[in-house]
């Protein structure tokens, strides 16, 4: 069972918010004594997702949670936006697929960096992406 220990909601609509969000994620990761490599993975994943949110949906909300399962602690991030949504999630999860002019590594790359990755999207309503990174693992 996974328990949520703390919850922090951050609105991200401006570029300054992105910097603030990254700092909060980092603080949270440091607080649960996440190792440096995992911190870097989590921050990079967060950076990818928040960029997508800014680029395709003009911003959204990120919830930072500290979760606990047994002895293991982790950070869960939920990014939700009210953007255009993703019509074909399977395609979006493939390496090299991009509707923008980027490399198309954002979503599949992010999935490789974290322990759990969940994506829900409805065209015209928005996208919710949840990622979880355990402190050890």
């Amino acid at each position, binding site marked *: 069972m996974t328990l949520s220990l703390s919850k922090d909601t951050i609105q991200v609509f401006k570029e300054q918010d*992105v910097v603030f969000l990254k700092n909060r994620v980092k603080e949270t990761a440091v607080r649960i004594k996440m190792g440096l490599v995992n911190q*870097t993975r989590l921050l990079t994943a967060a950076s990818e997702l928040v960029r997508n949110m800014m680029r395709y949906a003009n911003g959204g909300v990120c919830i930072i949670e500290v979760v606990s399962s047994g002895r293991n602690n982790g950070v869960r991030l939920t990014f939700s936006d009210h953007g255009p949504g993703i019509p074909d999630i399977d395609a979006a999860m493939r390496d090299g697929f991009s509707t923008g002019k980027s490399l198309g*590594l954002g979503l599949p790359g992010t999935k490789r*960096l974290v322990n759990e990755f969940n994506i829900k999207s409805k065209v015209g309503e928005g996208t919710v992406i949840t990622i979880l990174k355990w402190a050890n693992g």
Partner: protein
Amino acid sequence: MVTIQVDLYDRLALNLEADLVQMVNKTSAKGVLIDISAVSIVDSFMGRIIGNIASMSKILDAETVVVGMQPAVAITLIELGLPLKGVHTALNMEKGMNLLKSMIDVTEEDEDQEQEADDFITE
């Protein structure tokens, strides 16, 4: 030579790209050395900017070497699926400078092969 001392956000990275390429042209530089030892995360966007700087400098006849990448950043980049192909890397500033010198003036240094050993991404 540029050292990046803060974590770049997107606009700053784009400015850096434009400024650097302009400077390469203005000063007819032969080499670009980018120190990223203070950068704690490189995501796909930053990786693309670094790649862009290298290829843009290349067609302006300048070589690019990225130095001082943190181990955690290297791990993350590879897992992300971004091997930074075509970007020369070196462990530190000094080795980066040697690598640049060997690339710019190959005639003076014959044993530029040994510099390859310092590459920790393309090893």
